[in-house]
């Protein structure tokens, strides 16, 4: 849409600007403040320069949490994206099945995150949970509390359960926008199922897919509540992702300088990814 140049529009944006400034810029400045200062208590601060940043960038603990988080995000994307596409392709296109599928599939997306954690914590327990009990009955030595591998599997299956529907719904929205004429043309040309997918459906879906990949990456990169409730970051540190580590550092150990430096590194990564997201979105809008 052609938009007219009008600087008075700033007045309409002003409330948002003030509100978000209060809830974003002031807290962020506090973080910046802590990241360059040190204290011995009593609210006496002195300049520390880049000390905290050097410390965090040389700490094994930070890189391990980062590594775990990247591996987690990668596994999530590898499972959820193809699975989401596959399910979206098999969704009914019309009839009573459409609203039923949409509503039931969206349900996990609307459950509070700590309840998602609680659901899986209970579901996976070997004494009272359906999953844990069944796996034990089938002869698997499953125990997500003590076994790091089982803890990872549980957290990943939980995330697949929680968020695959987002990919499904986005892909489905892309699929239903394909005009019937495309399929008729493919039918006349005698195109195979694979060719229809590769040359008609996939190109039509690739923008929604990009959105899905970015959203899933971002949200899995800052996951906190669900694994915290299920495993508490354990056993040991094996499921301690970046956010869990950050909260431990800031609120658990009250190590403000290091936590602040870590926050800033974390936030810069998120900024970079947001920029990719924004570029994709605006390119899409321009085409629309």
């Amino acid at each position, binding site marked *: *849409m052609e938009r*007219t*140049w*009008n600087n008075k529009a*700033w007045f*309409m*944006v002003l*409330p*948002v600007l003030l*509100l*978000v400034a209060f*809830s*974003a810029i*002031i*807290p*962020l400045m*506090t973080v910046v403040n802590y990241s360059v200062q040190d204290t011995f208590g009593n609210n006496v601060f002195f300049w520390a320069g880049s000390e905290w940043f050097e410390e965090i960038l040389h700490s094994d603990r930070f890189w391990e949490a980062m590594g775990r988080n990247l591996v987690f995000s990668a596994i999530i994307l590898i499972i959820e994206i193809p699975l989401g596409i596959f399910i979206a392709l*098999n*969704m009914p*296109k019309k009839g009573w099945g459409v609203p039923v599928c949409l509503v*039931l*599939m*969206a*349900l996990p*997306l*609307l*459950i509070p*995150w*700590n*309840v998602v954690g*609680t659901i899986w914590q*209970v*579901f996976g327990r070997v004494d*009272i949970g*359906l999953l844990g009990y069944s796996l034990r009955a089938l002869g698997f030595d499953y125990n997500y509390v003590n076994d790091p591998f089982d803890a990872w599997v549980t957290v990943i299956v939980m995330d697949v359960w929680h968020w695959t529907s987002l990919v499904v*719904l*986005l892909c489905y*929205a*892309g699929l239903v926008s394909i005009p019937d004429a495309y*399929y008729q*043309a493919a039918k006349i040309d005698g195109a195979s199922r694979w060719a*229809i997918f590769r040359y008609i459906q996939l190109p039509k879906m690739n923008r929604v897919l990009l*959105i899905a990949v970015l*959203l899933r990456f971002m949200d899995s990169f*800052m996951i*906190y*509540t669900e694994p915290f*409730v299920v495993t508490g970051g354990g056993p040991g540190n094996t499921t301690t992702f970046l956010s*869990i580590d*950050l*909260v431990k550092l800031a*609120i658990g150990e009250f190590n403000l300088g290091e*936590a602040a430096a870590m926050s800033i590194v*974390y*936030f810069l990564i*998120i*900024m970079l990814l947001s*920029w990719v*997201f924004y570029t994709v979105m605006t390119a899409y*809008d321009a085409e629309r």
Partner: protein
Amino acid sequence: MAHLDETTANERTLMRQTPATAEAQTANARLARKMRRRGEESRFWWLVPTIYIIFLMLPIYWLVNMSFKNNQEILGAFSLWPRNPTLANYAVIFNDPSWYRGYINSIIYVVMNTVISVAVALPAAYAFSRYRFLGDKHLFFWLLTNRMAPPAVFALPFFQLYSAFGLIDTHIAVALAHCLFNVPLAVWILEGFMSGVPKEIDETAYIDGYSFPRFFLRIFMPLIASGVGVACFFCFMFSWVELLIARTLTTTAAKPIAAIMTRTVSASGLDWGVLAAAGVLTILPGALVIWFVRNYIAKGFALGRV
């Protein structure tokens, strides 16, 4: 699109040329039906959605199942459905103020947040969708970074900021803090909907002598009503599901239900039935209204960009 129009035009001429015998018509109809069914070629297309939905429903079913059992039954014999269904767990929640106040607290700050977010987002979204102004793109991008910001980064600074203002343990503190991600969300969703309304409508209204506020409330709002509904739904949802910030900013008077649940797990530890019942009650608000937004779920989660 040009070549498509051409094909349909060709088809039309083709049809006109074929003799309109009954046979040809049924053959045409059969072909059309076949074409429509493509994409669901196999007769088992329903299998995949069904299996997926069962996978989604099983853990939820297990929670509901547990909420109707008492603790002896949960910890004792393993059963797939409650043998002696009981509402005792729900009764505990509805009779104990320290439980049900959690729900009231959550609803208070969530509603406050939704109202604030959508109210400030409406004019801003209009500005972004209709005008260009100094720094508009940067501002729009900056809003997005807040939606993507990890709550963990903000937990501690929020605590200090709201302590300084003496707002800790008040509903408004949580409502304002949640604006961090809900205002950008509302702006992006509403902008998506508003850009779908042609600009000619605005211009016609101004020519007809409408003032801006009157135009906005009388003409524009009804046109984007579904967008406002979707924005409200998503603000409500994201504020309702958030735990970390809400927990950090409250101690007792405004403590959300989510935080009360986690406390019960760690402290008394074993009251699984009540925990399950509390969980089921937190799922209900989403489950109740989801039907109304079913066609916009993808759009809402993708920030109005599908």
